[in-house]
Structures are given as C-alpha cells and as structure tokens.
C-alpha cells in the first residue's frame, strides 16, 4: 500500500464536545477511501480535519497529526494545504454571482494564473474531468446557478480539480442529488482515482461498496474498523461493523 495521507491519534472537538477520538488510519494513493457510519459518528469531522476545514468554525480544536506525503499538514500554512487537498461539500455551493467559467477559474486566478490561454485550457480540462464539459460547452458564460443540482455538484468538483490538488475530499457529495445524478458522480469518482487520491464520506453503504477500495467504519467518534472494502463488508472483524452493515442499527 502506497500511503498518501495518514492520520495519527487524531482527535477533534467542537467546544467541549469531542467529535472524533484517537483516529489513526492510512489513505492509499490513487485509491478511493470511503468513511461510513451513522449520523453524528464524526465522519464529516474527520474528513474536514484532512484539509484543515474543521478549524474554520469557532471554538474548535484538533489534536494529533495528519500527514500528507509524510509531512504534518498542521505545520504548514492552511491555505497551502487546501490547494493540495481539495474538497467537495454536501450541498453544491457554486459561487452564485460567477459564471460557470469563472467558478472553475476562481482557484486558478488565486494561484496567479492570468494568461487567458492557460486559463481556458485548464478550465476546459477540469470541466472534462468532471464530465460536465459536454453539457456546458456552449454556455460557460452562464451563471453557475442555471445548472441542475447534479450539474452544480460536478461544477464544484471541476472547481476543486482545477487547482490540481493531489487529494480530493468529498463530504457526502450525493446527499442532495437524485439517483441519476448520483450515478454520474459515482462513475466520475471511479475515473478520478487514476489521477487523484479520493476520500469520500457517505451515509450510503451501497455507495461505499460500489466506489471505494478502502472503507473506514466510524461509530461515536471512534474508528471501529478499517480495511479493504470487500473484506469489511463480507467479513467484518468487529461485531459493531457487522451490526451496522446488516442494518441492525444506524
């Protein structure tokens, strides 16, 4: 296993409430890692610790280490970390005042890319990677809000991909989408792992089983079990995991 990211004894708090506790796990490069578990188990908190988004909320705290290529991201500038580790959120959140093009180019412009040809090339490439290009190529000047929910989510994926991150975090990216849009995003996730390391949080076990190479099961803030997806679903080692995947709680 070629480890891209690694958490070491990671704990995180909201105020005095401990949301995750002592999580240690590896994330394989060019693979999809799913984090599953019932609501409130800390899976979103965990993924938000991986690109230092947890700390943007007031009164939050993180302990432990998150290594990216062996270096602790909490010892690097957060802004730089987030350019290497992109993120896609539960609800599509394109910038409503920007066009489709500008949404994708937003991160590039922050990076100082001004050359129109280079911008064009990278915007188109990102839209293609997010499998949105065919649907929007005639109207990238339109508002991002003119797209359907599923298209908006792929636009957000394109926006995240445009800055060429090494890792892409997805926090329940399909929870606001219909089944057809969900299927498209799942196909997309499968393709993305060729170029990226993907971590996805999902409350949908079937989705984890379909897209993920590795699966982590969390419960009450603790990492209960982590392993190859097939193994975890077919031969869970922990009783809690088995109960959860057989639908006896959650």
């Amino acid at each position, binding site marked *: 296993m070629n480890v891209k990211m690694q958490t070491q004894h990671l704990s995180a708090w909201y105020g005095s409430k401990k949301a995750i506790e002592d999580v240690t796990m590896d994330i394989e490069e060019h693979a999809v890692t799913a984090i599953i578990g019932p609501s409130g188990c800390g899976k979103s908190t965990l993924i938000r610790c991986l690109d230092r988004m947890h700390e943007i909320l007031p009164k939050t705290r993180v302990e432990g280490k998150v290594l990216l290529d062996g270096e602790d991201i909490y010892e690097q*500038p957060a*802004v*730089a970390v987030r350019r290497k580790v992109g993120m896609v959120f539960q609800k599509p959140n394109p910038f409503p005042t920007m066009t489709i093009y500008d949404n994708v180019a937003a991160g590039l412009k*922050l*990076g*100082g890319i001004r050359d129109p040809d280079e911008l064009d090339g990278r915007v188109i490439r990102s839209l293609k990677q997010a499998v949105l290009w065919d649907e929007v190529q005639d109207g990238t000047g339109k508002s991002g809000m003119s797209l359907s929910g599923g298209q908006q989510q792929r636009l957000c994926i394109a926006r995240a991909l445009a800055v060429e991150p090494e890792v892409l975090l997805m926090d329940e990216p399909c929870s606001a989408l219909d089944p057809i849009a969900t299927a498209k995003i799942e196909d997309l996730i499968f393709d993305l792992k060729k170029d990226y390391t993907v971590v996805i949080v999902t409350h949908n076990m079937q989705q984890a089983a379909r897209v993920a190479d590795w699966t982590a099961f969390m419960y009450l803030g603790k990492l209960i079990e982590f392993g190859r997806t097939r193994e975890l679903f077919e031969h869970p080692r922990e009783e809690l995991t088995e109960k959860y995947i057989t639908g006896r709680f959650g």
Partner: protein
Amino acid sequence: MKLRFDRAARRIWKDRAMSTAALACVVVALVPLGSILFTAASQGIQSLNPGFFTSAVPPPCGSASTETCTPGGVGNAIEGTLVLVGLASLVAMPVGVLAGIYLSEYGNNRLGRGVRFFVDVMLQIPSIVVGIFAYTLIFELGRAGWTDPRSVFSTLTGVLALATIMVPIIARTSEEALKLVPNATREAALALGLPKHRVITGVVLGSARSGLVTGALLGVARVSGETAPLIMTAFGSPYFFQGLNQPIAAMPLVIYTFGLSPYPNWQHLAWGAAFVLVLMMLGISVVSRLALRGRFSLAEVAR
C-alpha cells in the same frame, strides 16, 4: 518556482494587511464616538449643578460684558423638551400603536403591504421637511382665520412636527414587536373562544409589552434629539413654558444656538445640555438593547 513562492507570500501579506485595515476601520469609528462622549462628559459635567436643571437660560456673558454674570441653567429648555416630547408622545403613541396593530394583525395582505410601504416612506422624510410642514400648516390655517396667525412659532406647532416624526416610528416598531408574538399564542387564545379583538388587546399586546415599550422609548429618543424641525416651529425661548400658542425652549435648540454663540457661559451650557441629552440617548439605547435581548430569549422559550 521562486515566483510561486513570492505569490504565496504576497497573498498572505495582503491577507494580513486587509485584516489590519478592517480593524483600523473599527478604530476610525470608535475614535469620534469616544471623543464625543469624552468631550460631552468633561465639558458638560462642569455645568451640572442644581441651578443647571432649575434656572432659565442666562443672558450672554462675554469678556466685554460689564455686568456680573448670572450662572443660569437650561431648566426652561429641559421643561420645554419634556412638554414637547410629552405632548407629541401623547398623540403619537396611541395612533402609532393602533397603526402597528393594523399592520401586524390585519395587514398581511396587499393593502397592508401598501400601507406599510407608505409608512416607510414617511419614516424617510427628512425631519427638517416635517418642520416646514408643521410651520406651513399652522401658517396657512392662520391665514384662513382658523388659528391665531401670531402662533406660528409655538409649542403646538412644535408638537405637531415631533408627533408627525414619531407616529411612523411607533407604528413600525409596534408592528415588529407584535409580529414577534408567536402565532401559537394567538391561536391558543382564539381556541378559548375569545373574540379576535380581545385576543389582541388581552393577550398579544401583553406578550409584546417589552417590545412595545422599547419601540416607544426609541421614538422618544429620536424626537428628543431633533433640532431642525424645532427651529421653525417651537422656535426657542428664554422663558419657561408660556402657553401652547407661545414659542418654547428645547434642549437641542439650546445646544444649537448656544454652541454657535461666542459667549463662554452659553457654550458651557450647550455642552451641559449635550451631556444630558447624550446620557439619555445612551441610556435608552442600552435599555432597549436589554429589553430586546430579553424578548428574543422569551420568544425562543415560547417556541
């Protein structure tokens, strides 16, 4: 690669610069506030003595003056402001609260929205224009023989101006206060078989009490500081209250005329009056803040 690094450093530098600038903006706003409060307190406090509140304004007392200076006070202006604001409240509060009831309890339709729009328009009329209105109305009534033409500059005209400013304020704050009463409260009372007007007068107004009082206080605060509309209505006077058809003094007018005068004793009185007025405004502001906070938490509990 070096270029990239420079850009990252520049972005972080700019981030810090903008944060500092935003903080600086807060300081820029706090400096005049602090300076006003400090100057009003330090200049005003010297004039505060019992006579300040009870004596009428003194004659000017400059260095060239050979007479002995009488200290005097702004008692007549305090009385004038109390009379003007009191009478204006007497008119504006019942009308304003009733209008607020209409907007909140009966105005949830196109007609109500139209009325609300025009009430908001009234709120935006510059206060000096309201002064002109009051003056012109009384003047024209006098020309038509309905009132004494000599009473254009009078207490009554001043009250007319202040009440006109106050009514829309009371109406809108009352509406907002009433709207904060949860619908469940209304429904619970209606379910007891109370007729709607008893629900409103008995239950809704009671629940909105602190909000209504806050709105009334804000209205009082606003008109107590009004100066421009009094220039051409109440006009100002060196005497205590002389009658509704006579000019009357007011705190803001004293601040205006005495503040711009060349006489030190008048200037000191202006600062004293400003200090009293500012204290009153700050007091009302703080009290209304506390009342609002209480009301919001009450609303949350009720929900």
